[in-house]
């Protein structure tokens, strides 16, 4: 009996120490040795890592204010928190390791030891059918407005509502209202069920409240709340965007679309390119606000138009966002010894090409070239939104504008989204520095974006790697004529053979 007890005690202590070992190796770097969310990496991320000492968790199946269940915690460990620095650990740690570390994380807060704090999961129903139908979406939209989602998430759901600039978490860190068009970045998952669960539980520690009380107050029915979730889901693409390497620019026979909202763009496929923080050169930037760009391109016989669209909650410079900007600079560690003061920076975008189409595999350094290997860039800024500057970058901190720019731009800011069209002639008078565009060739292209209201300027930006732009070749007329000619010829020959055969048959009969 005593042996059994000893064994139980031993197993229990082993669990904690095993969990601690896993924690120290894999988690403490961000979450801190004492679980306070203050590890070495913490000052490089927004949102910051979870502080386990308060036992406040966003992703739960329990009502607001309650502890999460073990299953809730395990889900966050397994899957990670999308759109944040927290990765999923399911494939990296064994079942045993993950269970051990879960048990250890709970020791950071006395709430888990308090037997009066038993989490009671909400009994969620299932989504009513017809969720993607027009009628359901209309109901969803109606309640999206009436329960006030737009206050933070904005009229079109891009996280640009009137209260968005003021949002902060419990610890005073800046926090964005989710861009509801990017469900693959929702912290707790992007399915209709995930969204509905978050509406019921709220995301504790963040400004997102629970809407469960509305059901009890009969403000709306459970079905109507599901419709809100289905409406929110409908704002994002059916599938998360897949990165394709090549932007195809079809040839247009009509006029080049200079305006971002020209109807000619609707027929063109969009390519999505993710952006990440520029963490290579100082000052590094770990919290880019622009998660990616949607790109379309077309060309005519003599010109090219490139349309870049990206979600940005703020039309910078905007003094309403200065408070947010101050919180960002306070939360993140700067490479500079003196912390930067908030200022009214504009939004910016850069499109980068090589100076000439490379003949081999080698391309210039993707991060804005090098002193001896410049890259050709188009730069646009929200402070002079209808112009663009062409120039040569020779490294991240050197940009020399070219006198004869030749590139034009038009821009629209609409409910949390920038849409910018760059246009230029295909040919170039200055072939030494300005890339001549040619059809049928893979032209390297890369993108850079700055959200001024998020503190981004200079080297603090979101960057992509090299991708390709391909101007589809005009199809020569013979491609269409040859098959018709061949068909006519074949038909004619066939008929000749048949006619000849018939001639012979009638000749024999006569004989």
């Amino acid at each position, binding site marked *: 009996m005593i042996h059994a007890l000893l064994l139980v005690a031993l197993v229990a202590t082993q669990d904690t120490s095993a969990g601690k070992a896993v924690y120290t190796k894999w988690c403490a770097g961000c979450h801190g040795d004492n679980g306070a969310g203050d590890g070495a990496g913490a000052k490089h991320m927004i949102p910051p890592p979870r502080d386990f000492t*308060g036992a*406040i968790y966003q992703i739960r199946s329990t009502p*607001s*204010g*309650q*502890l999460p269940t073990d299953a809730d915690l395990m889900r966050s460990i397994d899957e990670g928190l999308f759109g944040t620095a927290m990765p999923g650990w399911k494939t990296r740690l064994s079942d045993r390791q993950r269970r051990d570390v879960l048990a250890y994380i709970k020791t950071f807060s006395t*709430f888990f030891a308090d037997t*009066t*704090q038993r989490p009671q999961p909400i009994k969620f129903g299932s989504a009513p059918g017809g969720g993607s139908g027009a009628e359901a979406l209309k109901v969803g939209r109606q309640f999206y407005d*009436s*329960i*006030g989602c737009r*206050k*933070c998430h904005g009229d079109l759901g891009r996280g640009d509502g*009137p*209260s968005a600039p*003021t*949002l902060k978490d*419990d610890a005073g860190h800046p926090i964005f209202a989710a861009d509801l068009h990017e469900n693959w970045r929702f912290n707790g998952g992007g399915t209709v069920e995930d969204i509905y669960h978050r509406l019921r539980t*709220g*995301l*504790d*520690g*963040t*400004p*997102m*409240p*629970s*809407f*469960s*009380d*509305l059901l009890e*107050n009969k*403000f709306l029915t459970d079905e109507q709340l599901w419709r809100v979730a289905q409406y929110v889901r409908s704002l994002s693409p059916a599938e998360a965007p897949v990165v394709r390497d090549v932007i195809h620019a079809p040839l247009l026979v009509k006029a080049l679309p200079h305006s971002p909202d020209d109807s000619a763009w609707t027929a063109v496929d969009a390519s999505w390119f993710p952006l990440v923080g520029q963490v290579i050169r100082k000052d590094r930037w770990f919290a880019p606000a622009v998660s990616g760009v949607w790109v379309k391109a077309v060309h005519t016989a003599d010109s090219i138009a490139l349309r870049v669209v990206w979600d940005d909650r703020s039309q910078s410079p905007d003094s309403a966002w200065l408070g947010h900007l101050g919180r960002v600079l306070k939360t993140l560690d700067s490479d500079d010894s003196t912390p930067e003061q908030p200022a009214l920076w504009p939004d910016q975008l850069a499109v980068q090409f090589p100076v000439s189409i490379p003949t081999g595999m080698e391309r210039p350094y993707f991060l804005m070239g090098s002193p001896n290997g410049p890259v050709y860039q188009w730069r646009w800024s929200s402070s002079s939104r209808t112009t663009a500057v062409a120039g040569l970058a020779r490294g991240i901190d050197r940009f020399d504008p070219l006198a004869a720019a030749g590139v034009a731009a038009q821009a629209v800011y609409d409910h949390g989204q920038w849409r910018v069209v760059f246009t230029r002639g295909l040919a170039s008078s200055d072939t030494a520095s300005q890339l001549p565009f040619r059809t049928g060739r893979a032209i390297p292209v890369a993108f850079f974006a700055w959200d001024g209201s998020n503190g981004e300027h200079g080297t603090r930006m979101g960057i992509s790697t090299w991708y390709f732009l391909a101007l589809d070749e005009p199809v020569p007329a013979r491609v269409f004529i040859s098959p018709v000619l061949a068909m006519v010829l074949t038909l004619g020959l066939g008929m000749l053979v048949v006619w000849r055969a018939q001639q012979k048959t009638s000749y024999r009969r006569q004989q």
Partner: protein
Amino acid sequence: MNGRILSVVGGMFLLTVCSKGDGSIHAAPPAAEPPTPAADVSVAGGTITGKIKFTGVAPKNPAIDMSEEATCKAKYPSTPTEENVVAGAANALANVFVYVKSGVPAGQTFPAPATPVVLDQNGCRYHPHVFGIMVGQGLEIQNSDPVLHNIKAIAKANRPFNVSQPSAGMKTTRTFSAPEVMVNLECNVHGWMKAFLGVRPDPFFAVSGADGSFKIAGLPPGTYTIEAWHEKFGTQTATVTIAGTETKPANFTFTAH
């Protein structure tokens, strides 16, 4: 909330305190203490009253831009301001939470009142702005504005919560399970909306009024540490000894900054 009087005096105190001044109250055998209902006891007990002032120049309360919420804005004749420092005549300081920090004998329990504390969201501001509540006492949060408010409690000793009230007439009741000074309440839709509540295990707390005065009554004899908390000016403490049904003063002067 100002001047809240909850008369809770255990017979044990009256018996023990008459002979004690050295803090050895705990020597009384617990078995001798009957579970006396608070209401049966007379209002007898000591009272602490005082005035709260500040020196220096009070910082200006920032104006609130309510242009996003026309229905809230319409409730004010002129531009409303935040209530960070509410000063009365002669530098009197309102909205100071004053409570007995220590001195109430351990083991003495006080039942939570059945009546809830009401927190009203009206004109996109909280009423009251600073208040006290007992552990286990209901906090009834109501919305008098036809707009979305969320009510987020930021707490450490208590579980935090964040609930929403998108229309006028909605009510939610919450309770707090542990003493905590202070729990912050905020609305994230309206970043200027803030309220502070002190959660106490006993009824010995008050909030200073517009004239800076407060009153804590029904105190059993003993030596108490009184703390005064202000959202901008910090905390101050004083020690007060109550020997019977007397009224003792405790004045606090904060320094504006």
